[in-house]
């Protein structure tokens, strides 16, 4: 019970602090999925799982920056592998439990992004009905108060989001371990390659319209040519 409470507290505080960057700046900058997952993996001795989750989430996030809170997805995935390692469960790239962690973290990101949008809309409506700070007679202090209020609110909300996200991801990982038998090793390797490659496709598709994949194909051809010569 004590250990569970400590984990809960750590996830709340760490998640809230990490999510503040995206909430306050609007774009992920220092807190990137690859950084979070790889750093967590390296810290707990699960480098391969952290690297695989980090690369997959990073590539998918570069291709599709809307519709999903990628920082929350990364916090959930990184928190998930960390919590599971505390209970002596170790994940491997491409294994069913790891894919379940990845799926659950992305679904958490999509779900909370939708919720954030709805809350933002209702906040816009309520602020329109409330006191208009633009008409206030104070010397701009009302703007400072508004920002500070939003940071505190954002911190608390981000902490709750992180705890729920990590909780859901750990549950998904545990369920998968309980329900599914370990997959064939070759299938695991193929899955470990297919998901980051799908991330590559999503990223290439988003980057510069129709010509970017063509440039990438030129790069592939050059690489195959060099490989053939070697």
């Amino acid at each position, binding site marked *: 019970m004590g250990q569970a409470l400590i984990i809960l507290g750590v996830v709340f505080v760490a998640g809230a602090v990490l999510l503040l960057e995206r909430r*306050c700046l609007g774009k992920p900058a220092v807190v990137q999925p690859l950084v979070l997952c790889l750093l967590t993996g390296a810290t707990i001795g699960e480098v391969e799982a952290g690297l695989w989750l980090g690369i997959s989430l990073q590539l998918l996030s570069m291709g599709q920056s809307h519709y999903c809170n990628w920082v929350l997805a990364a916090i959930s995935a990184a928190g998930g592998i960390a919590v599971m390692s505390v209970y002596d469960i170790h994940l491997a790239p491409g294994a069913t439990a790891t894919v379940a962690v990845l799926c659950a973290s992305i679904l958490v990101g999509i779900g909370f992004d939708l919720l954030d949008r709805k809350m933002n809309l209702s906040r*816009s409506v309520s602020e329109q009905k409330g006191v208009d700070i633009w008409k206030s007679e104070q010397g701009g202090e009302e703007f400072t108060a508004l920002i500070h209020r939003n940071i505190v609110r954002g911190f608390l909300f981000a902490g709750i989001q992180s705890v729920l996200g990590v909780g859901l991801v750990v549950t998904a990982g545990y369920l998968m371990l309980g329900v599914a038998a370990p997959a064939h090793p070759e299938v695991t390797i193929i*899955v470990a*390659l297919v998901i980051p*490659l799908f991330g590559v496709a999503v990223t290439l598709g988003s980057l510069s319209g129709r010509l*970017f994949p063509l440039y990438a194909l030129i790069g592939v051809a050059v690489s195959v040519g060099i*490989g053939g010569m070697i």
Partner: protein
Amino acid sequence: MKVSARLMLIQSAWTMTSMQSEGFVYCLLPALKKLFPEHARLKRVINHFHLPINTHPFLVSILAGSILKMEAEGQSQRLTVSYLRTAMTALAALGDSYFHAVLAFSSMIAVLVTLAFGPLPGLLTLLVMFNTVHLLIRFAGIFIGFKKGDATISALGQWIDSGKTRLLRTLTGIAGGFVISMIFSWIAEDFLSLYWIVPIAFGIILLAFVLNLKRSVWGYVLPAFLLLVLISEVLI
């Protein structure tokens, strides 16, 4: 420096109606208070920003600097607001294509290369390469904007123009394809021959092309694809 630091919080009070305008005023406040110590004048200047403001958060410092310069010079409200509206759109367009398409992707390629030397070099590459540029722009942008005033956007346009971005994008695309296929061949050499890479790479690029035709479907395609992979793995 205080304004630059505050710009990290520009989106804290983002709403659908005013977007970044409250955050923008909050960021400019220390400088505005210094420029306009008189309360009534300060209030009037603050109200110049009572319009929906939305631009790229990494480039907003340049806009903030040039607006401060215009306000300090006592330019008319009409001119300031008109400049603000034009500049924020231009900066949003420049920022999205530069940071999202070029910097993020080239950092990722550099990470994939440096990961061969271990996780720590890869991690440091991503942190340094991506963040140095936007942090530099964020902190220097306010001074550049204040020095050049309303001429900042044209100066920035010469630095990050669409031609240079297109060239960088082309080079990044070629390097991306090269690195990805090298990594793929290195990982898969045990069970795939080198020439398998061509159809696989072609398949990925075709998928990229199809996904790019209708971006709004990604929200459904992405979780559906991952769940499909998971179910297939469990069943096989």
